[in-house]
């Protein structure tokens, strides 16, 4: 049996991603519901009625589920907030992740386990000690160095700082995903430009655009190396994960609730394997290169290691959107399933596929499945290609429904 020293915490914004996280070996997932989470603008937001289903799926898979309630809270949110925490407790959600004192207070009153969100910007042991009265897990600020993280962990042990459970407080840090230009996500750029508060989950990603820098007096434009002067590259710590774990971190958090099941599966699996490799003493340069290649295939803005190794300035993206080496093109959706033969039928709604293509299927039952197309049956007969309107059949172990989406993977490096 593998010796697991750290938990991998995966982001979930849909039931497809939830299953992908489970399949890829996550120890826990986090999700938001309704409007009180930092991803409320995202297309896929769970509702309060989904909490039960999410909890049941996680319990069945033997992993933990955390509900994120980490926006700025107003007075008019109080009743919804209470009802969400009550529902989370009723459905055995393992903890709430929060930064606002109203949420912290309600969790304490309702005896709901609590984790302190990175939005609280915890950067020192005194703050950890303060919040330990309320929370067993604390997510540190992303701007700390690993040396500072290690010192905080050492001080937790030295001072015997325990949470409400009586156990030593556990430290969680972000290890992968998008970074914000503002400290601990406290950004007002969207609010000032479009009246959309990032702190209510409505970030309009203004930082991801290209900008010119102009001297207002002379009208001269400054020469800057890169127009994306406010868009940080994505955090990636896979090549320093041994150092991250040695710092004493207990939970490795992956960012990306709005991202697809393919992203969640790939990133979770890479960090699961890397964390296990560190535990087994087989964390090699060869494996790191292989994980890095896999991570580059899914959404990213280019990678850097964040501030963990003491970098004083950030690294900035060089393009808008993703720099992923692969992209997925929507082809169609599931239409029928033949359970005895374990064959799934998909209807092609856009584009075409051919033998040799790599297909990606995402869905609430399968999570993410990626495989090379070796044989193809179109409208019941063997074929080499399939086009819009065709019905193709594939051997598939799980029930196929219209919620299953079929994509073709295209290499973007040869475009």
């Amino acid at each position, binding site marked *: 049996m593998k010796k697991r020293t750290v938990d991998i915490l995966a982001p979930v914004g849909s039931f497809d991603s939830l299953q992908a996280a489970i399949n890829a070996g996550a120890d826990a997932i986090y999700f938001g519901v309704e*409007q009180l989470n930092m991803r409320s603008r995202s297309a896929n937001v769970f509702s309060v009625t989904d909490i039960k289903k999410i909890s049941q799926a996680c319990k069945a898979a033997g992993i933990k589920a955390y509900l994120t309630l980490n926006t700025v809270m107003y007075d008019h949110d109080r009743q919804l907030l209470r009802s969400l925490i009550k529902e989370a407790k009723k459905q055995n959600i393992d903890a709430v992740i929060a930064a606002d004192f109203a949420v912290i207070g309600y969790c304490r009153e309702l005896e709901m386990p609590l984790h302190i969100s990175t939005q609280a910007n915890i950067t020192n042991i005194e703050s950890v000690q303060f919040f330990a009265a309320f929370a067993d897990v604390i997510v540190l600020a992303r701007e700390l160095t690993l040396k500072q993280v290690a010192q905080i962990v050492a001080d937790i042990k030295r001072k015997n700082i325990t949470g409400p459970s009586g156990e030593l407080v556990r430290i969680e840090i972000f290890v992968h995903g998008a970074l914000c230009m503002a400290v601990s996500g406290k950004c007002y750029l969207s609010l000032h430009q479009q009246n959309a*508060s990032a702190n*209510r989950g409505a970030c309009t990603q203004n930082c991801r655009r290209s900008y010119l820098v102009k001297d207002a007096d002379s009208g001269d434009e400054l020469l800057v190396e890169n127009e994306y002067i406010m868009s940080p590259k994505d955090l990636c710590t896979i090549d320093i994960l041994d150092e991250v774990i040695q710092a004493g971190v207990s939970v490795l958090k992956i960012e990306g609730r709005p991202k697809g099941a393919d992203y969640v599966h790939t990133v979770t699996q890479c960090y699961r394997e890397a964390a296990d490799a560190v535990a087994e003493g087989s964390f090699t340069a060869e494996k790191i290169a292989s994980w890095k290649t896999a991570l580059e295939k899914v959404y990213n803005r280019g990678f850097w290691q964040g501030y963990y190794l003491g970098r004083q300035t950030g690294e900035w993206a060089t393009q808008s959107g993703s720099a992923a080496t692969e992209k997925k093109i929507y082809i169609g959706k599931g239409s029928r399933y033949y359970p005895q033969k374990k064959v799934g039928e998909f209807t092609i709604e856009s584009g075409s596929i051919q033998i040799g293509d790599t297909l990606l299927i995402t869905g609430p039952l399968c999570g993410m499945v990626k495989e090379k197309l070796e044989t193809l049956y179109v409208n019941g007969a063997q074929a080499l290609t399939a086009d819009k309107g065709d019905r193709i059949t594939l051997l598939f172990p799980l029930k196929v429904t219209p919620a299953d989406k079929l994509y073709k993977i295209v290499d973007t490096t040869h475009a």
Partner: protein
Amino acid sequence: MPKIIHYRNKCIGCGVCYEQQPSLWRMSRKDGKAILLRGISKKGIFQLTVPGEVMEQSAAVAKACPVNIIKIV
């Protein structure tokens, strides 16, 4: 007369509509989302016909909504 349309399901409860035009908006204490006062619901989409004189303010509210769920038609 012009109409305000409120796609309430997608409201994130920021409260900017209520702050700017309290005569037409309230924040629900039940679910934290905005309520278009006297609005008539059709499948969760609320509509209210309003006199022309308040339209300038309503247009500003529609523009201010961070998730663009308030429309004037």
